[in-house]
């Protein structure tokens, strides 16, 4: 599997990372080096092997379905780059 410039552009967009057009060829090259390394996995016989879900077998704990936290609006917003009137502020989303 080889990654071309179009695929690199698409992946960058999916990851929501702006990559200038002139850097895409180098990025595609790096992807290909890493994927070439990963390609070794295709040598392994994984028929009838379950994909790992949890490395230590454990049962998830249950607890009462009650509110345990909340009412901390000021703290929640304290690190926001832009917070107004008790909300996170972002550029216009809907035209």
């Amino acid at each position, binding site marked *: *599997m080889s*990654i071309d410039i179009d*695929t690199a552009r698409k*992946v*960058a*967009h*999916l*990851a*929501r*990372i*702006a*990559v200038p057009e002139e850097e895409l060829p180098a*990025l595609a090259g*790096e*992807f290909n*080096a*890493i*994927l070439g*390394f*990963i*390609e*070794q*996995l*295709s*040598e*392994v016989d*994984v028929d009838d*092997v*379950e*994909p*790992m*879900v*949890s*490395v*230590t077998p*454990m049962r*998830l*704990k249950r*607890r009462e379905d009650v509110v345990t936290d909340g009412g*901390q609006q000021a*703290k*929640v917003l*304290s*690190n*926001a*780059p*832009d917070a107004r009137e008790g909300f*996170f502020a*972002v*550029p*216009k*989303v809907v035209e």
Partner: protein
Amino acid sequence: MTELNTLKISEARDALRKGEVTSVELTEACLAAIDGADALGAFVHKTPEIALERAKAADARGYDGQPDLNGIPLGIKDLFCTEGVPSQAASRILQGFKPEYESTVSAQLRSAGAVMLGKLNMDEFAMGSSNETSCYGNAVNPWKGENGAELTPGGSSGGSASAVAADLCLGATGTDTGGSIRQPAAFTGITGLKPTYGRCSRWGIVAFASSLDQAGPMARDVRDCAIMMSAMAGHDPKDSTSADLPVPDFEAALTGDIRGKVIGIPKEYRMDGMPEEIETLWTEGAEMLKDAGAELRDISLPHTKYALPAYYVIAPAEASSNLARYDGVRFGHRAKLSQGDGITEMYEKTRAEGFGAEVKRRVMVGTYVLSAGFYDAYYNRARKVRTLIKRDFDEVYASGVDAILTPATPSAAFELGKEVSDPVEMYLNDIFTVTVNLAGLPGIAVPTGMSGTGLPLGLQLIGRPWEEADLLNCAYTLERAAGFVSKPAKWW
């Protein structure tokens, strides 16, 4: 008189209890050492006011019946959220972030009376093996290379390793996703333990790859790691993957008696092109354990070769998901926007400015392996290989092996700037450590010798799940036999 900042945790604890020293004196000695060590780039946010306040409080509590860590000055890796203190995972994207909360592990250390000296350098989001991807600049190894070359302390917990090795603090927290505690410990001649997955709570630790990340202690010897471990471990309702198991007194397990224990020597760790001195170190380490009464057994972990490629699917996949939260909305950096920019441009510009090259690379690789059409070929296949890697270990342990001895790293510390250009070459640093994360096992790096160029070298012991106590005892036995006492010559 020994300088106070060079004491081991166990020595400082005993001196505090005897009233020979105060926590304020210990803390002041560390703070002075930190201020004189900016050239190491280890401490990136110093917190002297907090340190002195907590030291005074520890002294006021006194040392009768208090926890072992009462009054002990420690450094905290920047990956741990610490209330009111910058916690930015060495990333520009978290610039200015001051958590309103404290990570469970650092909170437990604090409630055990430990004194926080400041935050420690690391690779950005713990992605790296040389501490060269940090937005703060490199952390530097206190050990110098030939001709005075500056060396990496390893990564990602490079600042923690450098600080402990240079006597800036008595111990430090690290985190380990693929070797980030054990490789830097080996590169700097200190001891570092990655516990079983689930032994320490991950709550409040900036997430990299959630199924692999574990916090652990980095300290001057096995005993100090055991002391820190007892305070760091334990169930936390806020982390559903933290194990609800009793935490043993790890220090009490250090008897030095490993007679009858079976130590496995995996043949797959004998890599082509492995330096002769690593091979010798390994053989000598095995002999030391044998002399202490353990039985050596040749074992096979057949899927070892596939651990790194599996890791470089699983870790980036989880990272791409975890790091989606850095979007310029709730915390950290937001890019300046141009006229007409919408929300997508805000995300894309913020993440382009905020993430460094290696983080971007891994987020994008992770995005790719999770994308439609490749999910099965890459991600699911890697998770199946992970099952096989764990099965290798399960079978070896079921056959009666108690612990496994391997080299910790394929080389001694290398020069800063040497390997940064080739990502895959850099990934090979974790070749002996990464299997342990994939299998969720505890592993410890112990310094046991020196390279031909006068640098520390370490061995790794891998234990059975949840049996850190036995593992620490085995490491303690190896440490006593090796008698590693070298310290770097002070140049900073």
